[in-house]
């Protein structure tokens, strides 16, 4: 038995040339073949790659899609993000659990099916949704959950669960998914006709500096949410010293409620890859990496095929489009379920075959990124914008939007609205206008920017979606009158507690404390001073955390404390005696009373 495991590991490791930086791929391959990574395999992988066992083990323990414990041949991962919860996840969860006869986190006694929760899988517009191995199932109900289990018990083949295919490329023979694009509003930029090769051709006919100038003239800012000027990032990277440079495309779309990159990758992969190639030309890179989240593994074969075609057509490879001396290739790096890897330095760590821990900045990736080389990391949408800028010229790009937020933006709208889906709108648009389009006029609250964004109250619906006001990577989650604001915030805190990488204390411990204090208030055990304490703790976590995760995780609490103060105030009351309502003497003595075998003199006198 061990002999064959050794053979498997040796074969896999040598297929990646024993390259330590490909540890993610090695672990993934072993995982695929064995269903998990057996502990003896860790030692073997370590030996083959010349690293220590703990490095392998720590990587496996970091990513939620890897495990060292045997699990079912089929793994059902039910998405538990807030929008899926609102669309009936609980009933679906009960149905899965009852029909399988197991709880979440368990595997059926015959070892065939495992059941677990997973954070947002990028299907908020068609939830409740689940991943069954790589297969996405959407619009679940308790009935369909039961049917799925019954069918799986017969054939254990998730691909056979798909009875009807989604629209557009979702029906492509290499995708075959029941996912729907739900493109509700096509703007002039991203969803216009694609002239394959045109943008790249135009780029290659001018100098790299001119390409960068075009991107700067267009005033393109990063579409992932942070809004850093893309041209400036490219310029720094071009200017940085390094034997090699790298282009990375961040397709680790993990911000709850965001699903625009899913649609771009499905419908406009050529534009994404062209954007990467143009970036490569501009900064002087020969290699690009598309970091694709594991949740979107159903797109991988399709994307590989698009890459293959581009290589065949001379759009990738040696002397791209006949441009002498410009060589560029792209590989796809699969993630393995870690929200923090959407943070660019964590994403780089992950590509290097490490835990997805963020790195200290400076040095910024532009100076020292992937494997120590100057690297740019751009969002999928940003790279799509680049192709349009090159195709139609910078002026056509920034004629829409505002002075400081040029161009259009894809919004992923979900939650309590009639028309959830993708909307391409000019930046600077009023939130109320967006809500009107989506059929969400009666919203009582809107979370803009995902879990790490902010909760906006109706009196602020006239604010503008742009980098300087309501900034968002695309996520807009709408909440109707029937929703409990504190429960929503609590769900976000659950998410951050789970996704904190644990490296720095303010984030690892701080988010736990924030959740605890929030719970105290929700249980009616808080007093007015607790709200101030909560706010103070939020500031501490924001200020002291090492990366964007902890710097933004208190946002849902902070923004609701600000805009929905009465909701909190209704839950707390001034204690006249100065005793803490959260402390219950009787309860805290129960263990003692049982062990000692007598009652408390104080409580019972």
């Amino acid at each position: 038995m061990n002999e064959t495991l050794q053979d498997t590991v040796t074969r896999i490791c040598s297929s990646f040339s024993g390259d330590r930086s490909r540890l993610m791929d090695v672990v993934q391959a072993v995982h695929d073949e064995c269903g998990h990574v057996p502990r003896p395999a860790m030692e073997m992988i370590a030996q083959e790659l010349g690293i220590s066992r703990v490095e392998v083990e720590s990587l496996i323990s970091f990513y939620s899609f890897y495990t060292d414990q045997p699990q079912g041949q089929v793994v059902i991962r039910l998405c538990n993000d807030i929008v899926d919860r609102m669309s009936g996840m609980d009933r679906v969860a009960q149905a899965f659990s009852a029909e399988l006869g197991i709880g979440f986190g368990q595997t059926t006694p015959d070892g065939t099916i495992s059941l677990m929760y997973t954070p947002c899988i990028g299907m908020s517009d068609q939830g409740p949704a689940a991943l069954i191995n790589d297969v996405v199932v959407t619009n679940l109900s308790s009935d369909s959950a039961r049917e799925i289990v019954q069918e799986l018990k017969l054939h254990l083949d998730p691909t056979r669960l798909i009875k009807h295919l989604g629209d557009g490329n979702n029906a492509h023979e290499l995708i075959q998914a029941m996912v729907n694009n739900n493109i509700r509003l096509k703007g002039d930029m991203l969803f216009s006709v694609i002239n394959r090769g045109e943008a790249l051709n135009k780029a290659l006919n001018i100098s790299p500096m001119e390409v960068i100038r075009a991107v700067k003239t267009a005033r393109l800012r990063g579409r992932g949410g942070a809004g850093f000027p893309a041209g400036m990032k490219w310029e720094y990277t071009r200017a940085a010293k390094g034997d090699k440079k790298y282009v990375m495309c961040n397709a680790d779309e993990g911000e709850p409620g965001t699903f625009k990159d899913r649609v771009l990758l499905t419908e406009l992969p050529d534009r994404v890859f062209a954007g990467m190639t143009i970036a490569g030309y501009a900064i002087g890179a020969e290699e690009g990496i598309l970091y694709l989240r594991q949740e979107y593994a159903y797109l991988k074969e399709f994307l590989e095929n698009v890459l293959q075609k581009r290589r065949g057509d001379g759009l990738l490879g040696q002397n791209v489009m006949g441009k002498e001396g410009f060589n560029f290739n792209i590989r796809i790096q699969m993630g393995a379920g870690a929200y923090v890897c959407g943070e660019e330095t964590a994403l780089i760590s992950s590509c290097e075959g490490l835990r997805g821990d963020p790195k200290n900045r400076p040095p910024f990736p532009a100076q020292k990124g992937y494997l120590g080389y100057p690297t740019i990391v751009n969002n999928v949408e940003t790279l799509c914008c680049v192709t349009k800028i090159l195709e139609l010229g910078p002026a056509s790009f920034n004629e829409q939007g505002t002075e400081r937020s040029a161009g259009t933006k894809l919004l992923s709208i979900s939650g309590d609205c009639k028309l959830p889906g993708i909307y391409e709108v000019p930046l600077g648009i009023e939130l109320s206008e967006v809500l009107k389009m989506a059929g969400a006029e009666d919203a009582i609250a809107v979370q803009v920017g995902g879990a790490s964004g902010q909760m906006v109250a109706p009196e602020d619906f006239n604010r503008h979606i742009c980098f300087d006001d309501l900034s968002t990577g695309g996520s807009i989650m709408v909440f109707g009158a029937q929703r409990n604001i504190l429960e929503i915030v609590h769900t976000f805190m659950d998410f951050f507690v789970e996704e904190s990488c644990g490296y720095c204390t303010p984030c690892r411990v701080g988010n736990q404390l924030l959740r605890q204090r929030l719970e105290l208030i929700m249980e009616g055990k808080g007093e007015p001073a607790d709200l101030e304490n909560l706010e103070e703790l939020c500031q501490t976590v924001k200020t002291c955390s090492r990366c964007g995760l902890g710097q933004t995780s208190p946002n849902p609490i902070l923004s609701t404390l600000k805009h929905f103060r009465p909701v909190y105030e209704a839950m707390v009351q001034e204690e006249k005696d100065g005793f803490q309502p959260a402390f219950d003497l009787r309860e805290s003595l129960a263990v003692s009373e049982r062990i000692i075998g007598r009652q408390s003199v104080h409580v019972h006198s």
Partner: protein
Amino acid sequence: MAKPKIATAALSGCFGCHMSLLDIDERILQLFELVDFDKSPIDDIKEFTGPVDVGIIEGGCCNEENVENLRKFRQYCKVLVSIGDCATTGGVPSLRNMVPLEECLREAYFDGPSVYNPSGEMPSDEALPLLLDKVYPCHEIVKIDYHLPGCPPPADTLWEALVALLSDKPVELPYSLIKYD
């Protein structure tokens, strides 16, 4: 005008903070000029004689008696100050929070290598206060107005804080008095 009153108590701690209070040396005479002590181990008054201006608490809460005591302080004291790491965080006694209470007691009375307990009984006399499920810092039991960290807070820190409180001035201690490294 009557002098302001202060009261002090040592809950689950080592009395080190009270020792530090005595460490103000001859200023203790000045302190007695400034204030009257009510319930406190310093003058050995066991029960409150009436409302008190400033209460000083050393130690966290490990048992029911601590809780009763602390709550009484909250009722009688206008301003309540937690001093030292045990009162503000649980401190050394709270190390037991990592071990379930039952295991702690078993180790103490049955399983520990030096335990001699031929009757095999767990002490249960009513004079012994029952232990809480874990050790709590004071602010989790009652509202605390000021926290003075340190193990123990130095005499000068205590002195400056007390003088400020008693003279109705804001408690703004210089960094040198609250830095511990």
